[in-house]
């Protein structure tokens, strides 16, 4: 199977990981001159090629390979780092490469005239290195290191336009929120190490060799699972730690598409899939509930947004919620499937949005308009000007909304149907989860429909400027090519020949999580119909509301406002955490000032009195003795001092006197 120059998959995988790092270092060395991004591009092309032929094809559905090297030894335990290649990691690494490549190409056009572009390529390469390293890490600690690196690269890229106040605030927020999650991850690692004595994923989860028996009902397993989930929650923007992701849209759109839609935020899902065997039922239920809550809340928030990128950001959060539910119900294969398809179409959505924003920014600059180029209210009717972008965006939107013939249809249905089967198996209130997921699906269809209609249909407000001769045209081909590539990836044939049966998709076949609840045949029939029908209905509603201008709700509707303000969650955080912290500090300050300081002052008074006594003793008795001694020494020294008068002749005279005396002694003797 290994036809690629006979390199072992492990070596190839290391190469895939290190190439972007070399690109990053090279660009750091070259500095401001590296504006073309060719180095980063070549590195990622090579990585993609090697990843596909050298890693993915030999590993996929074939073998699990791993290799480890000792890093350092603490006591008896030798920490080993290494490369773990199995179906999951190989797929993830390939996915990162394949999504990174079009984004790199797209960035060449999108970031062309930016002043800090040399930094941009450097950071992008750094991110690729970290993300690729994360996917194939063998050791949990190694994974954690890359996890942090990914967060750091994301921090750099969100704050890429660091002169913008909002961007700086956003990257700070992202970093802080991610810290919460990182602490969870670290606690999880510590718990696993404390109880299992190893951090090696292959040893822990029986990829090869002996498995360490983990008692699933132990309390620590629950805590460790929750801790890992906390880490994943922050990275994958789960409710209520999702607040950083919408703000992260301050970064360049190409970055948002790569990092904050397709790859980095998926790292949390990937982590959960990796440590899945650790989770017991309690943890899984928590994952499920949080996932559903996230999916629902984010979908509602997306309805009220005006910023085109924020809608997509909430859509991402919502879809990540879906994946969480997938993990929570035990169908992590479905979650990975959705992750893969989502990476394609969400990346495409962002790239399309980027193309629109790009053109709007040009228009704004040329016509000297004072508008926000990302605001939906200023857009409309763009399909006449940007037909190719329009087609790509529609394909991606259909995929997101889950229409047939798209990849999203397969993967989303796989999660929803499995959720129904799971709920049917467990009975009771569990059925709420699939029902909510269905509602979220319909909401998703609606808000993405709203986005399409508001952007590409209706009338363009600024048509008069174009009539005046300001050019407003299709995105450049360097941006269109990656978009077409991703559009092709958003359709069903890439993932399976069957139009409707997600079980026959090749990712599902190979990953196969082996869920143990019965398959509901009728769910497979009704749910796709229900979802598709609902989606079509909601698109039709969107059409009537937004294109035909029959908007039923007033602008200041409380519900709309609630959604626009993202459920007042930021304000809630501001009130509870920021003000709470401030208030607490004020109380502590008062306590400190009157109680602690009072004690201190009393003590200092006491000590001062004591020192007065000690001072007297010191001055008159101790100092007296010392002064007496010193005085004596001083007078003796004063007597001898005249010898050392700096006169060479005197020194010579003394020396000669000694010689004469010595000779006298010799003679007399």
């Amino acid at each position, binding site marked *: 199977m290994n036809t690629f120059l006979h390199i072992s998959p492990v070596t190839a995988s290391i190469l895939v990981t290190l190439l972007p790092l070399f690109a990053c270092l090279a660009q750091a060395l070259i500095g401001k001159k590296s504006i073309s991004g060719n180095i980063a591009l070549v590195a990622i092309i090579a990585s993609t090629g090697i990843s596909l032929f050298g890693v993915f094809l030999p590993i996929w559905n074939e073998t699990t390979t791993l290799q480890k090297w000792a890093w350092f030894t603490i006591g008896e335990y030798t920490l080993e780092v290494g490369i773990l290649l199995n179906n999951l990691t190989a797929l993830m690494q390939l996915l990162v490469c394949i999504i990174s490549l079009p984004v790199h190409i797209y960035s060449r056009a999108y970031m062309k005239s930016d002043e800090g572009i040399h930094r941009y390529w450097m950071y992008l390469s750094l991110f690729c290195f970290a993300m690729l390293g994360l996917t194939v890490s063998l050791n949990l600690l190694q994974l954690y290191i890359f996890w942090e690196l990914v967060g750091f690269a994301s921090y750099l890229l969100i704050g890429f336009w660091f002169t913008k106040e909002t961007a700086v605030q956003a990257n700070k927020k992202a970093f802080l929120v991610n810290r919460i999650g990182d602490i969870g991850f670290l606690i999880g690692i510590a718990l696993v190490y404390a109880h299992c004595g190893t951090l090696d994923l292959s040893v822990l989860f029986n990829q090869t060799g002996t498995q360490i028996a983990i008692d699933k009902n132990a309390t620590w397993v629950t805590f460790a699972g929750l801790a890992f989930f906390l880490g994943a929650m922050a990275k994958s923007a789960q409710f209520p730690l999702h607040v950083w992701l919408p703000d992260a849209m301050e970064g360049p759109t190409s970055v948002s598409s790569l990092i904050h839609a397709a790859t980095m935020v998926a790292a949390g899902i990937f982590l959960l899939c990796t440590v899945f065997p650790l989770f017991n039922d309690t943890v899984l239920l928590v994952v499920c509930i949080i996932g559903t809550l996230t999916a629902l809340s984010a979908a509602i928030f997306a309805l009220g947004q005006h910023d085109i990128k924020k809608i997509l950001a909430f859509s991402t959060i919502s879809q990540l919620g879906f994946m969480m539910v997938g993990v929570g119900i035990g169908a992590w294969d479905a979650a990975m499937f959705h992750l893969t398809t989502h990476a394609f179409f969400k990346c495409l959505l962002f790239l399309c949005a980027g193309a629109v924003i790009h053109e709007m920014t040009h228009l704004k600059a040329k016509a000297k308009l004072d508008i926000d180029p990302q605001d939906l209210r200023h857009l409309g009717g763009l399909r006449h000007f940007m037909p190719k972008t329009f087609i790509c965006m529609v394909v991606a939107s259909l995929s997101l909304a889950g229409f047939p013939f798209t990849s999203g249809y397969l993967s989303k249905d796989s999660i929803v149907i499995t959720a129904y089967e799971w709920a049917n198996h467990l009975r009771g209130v569990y059925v709420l989860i699939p029902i909510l997921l269905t509602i979220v699906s319909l909401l998703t269809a609606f808000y993405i429909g709203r986005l399409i209609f508001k952007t590409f249909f209706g009338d363009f407000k600024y048509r008069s400027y174009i009539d005046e001769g300001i050019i407003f045209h299709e995105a450049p081909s360097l941006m269109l090519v990656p978009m077409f590539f991703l559009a092709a990836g958003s359709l069903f044939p890439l993932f399976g020949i069957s139009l409707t049966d997600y079980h026959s998709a090749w990712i599902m076949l190979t990953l196969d999580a082996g869920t143990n609840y019965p398959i509901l045949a009728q769910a497979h029939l009704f749910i796709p119909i229900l979802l598709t029908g609902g989606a079509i209905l909601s698109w039709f509603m969107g059409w009537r509301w937004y294109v035909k201008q029959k908007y039923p709700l007033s602008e200041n509707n409380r519900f709309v406002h609630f959604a626009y303000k993202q459920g007042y969650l930021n304000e809630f955080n501001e009130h509870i955490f920021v003000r709470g912290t401030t208030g607490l500090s004020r109380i502590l300050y008062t306590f400190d000032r009157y109680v602690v300081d009072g004690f201190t002052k009393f003590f200092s008074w006491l000590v001062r009195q004591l020192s007065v006594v000690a001072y007297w003793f010191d001055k008159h008795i101790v100092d007296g003795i010392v002064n007496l001694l010193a005085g004596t020494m001083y007078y003796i020294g004063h007597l001898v001092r005249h010898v050392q008068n700096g006169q060479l*002749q005197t020194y010579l005279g003394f020396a000669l*006197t000694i010689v*004469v005396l010595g*000779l006298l002694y010799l003679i007399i003797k």
Partner: protein
Amino acid sequence: MIESLLFYAFAGLAILSALLLVHIRNIARALFLLFIVLFAMAGLYLFALADFIAITQILVYVGGVLILLIFAFMLSNKELLDDLQPSSKRFISLPNWQAIILALAFLSLMIYSYISWAQHMPKWISQAEAKGRMILPTDNNIKTLGFKFMTQYVLPFEVISVFLMMALIGAAHLSRKESNK
């Protein structure tokens, strides 16, 4: 007899002018007294049958060193005026009594040890006297010295030549006016 008289004359001249040299306060005169001392010393070398050394002494000291000293004295002649100031008329000024005592003590020590040493001289001197291996007034000293320098003492000779050159270059460097400061 004449030989002895001449020796004593030269020795007396050397010692007396040296004493006058150290006593006199005018440096210019002192330097000319040094000239006399060096001549007298050269004469003493002749009595030790070292004619070449005597001539070298005159050439090097009188022709080189003394001229150098006079130049240095003139270059730092601010002190000249100080020295011409009338000082105490006493033969020995009080501040120097330690130096005089020290010098006299040293002199007496040396003379005492020479006299006691003369009672039993080293064997090689008496042997040389006995076997007639002494330098005689009829010997051609200059020729022999030339041979010795080029054969037996060639290494020290070369070393001292290089040393002299180094010293002269060093002296020239040291006394150079540092204009770049």
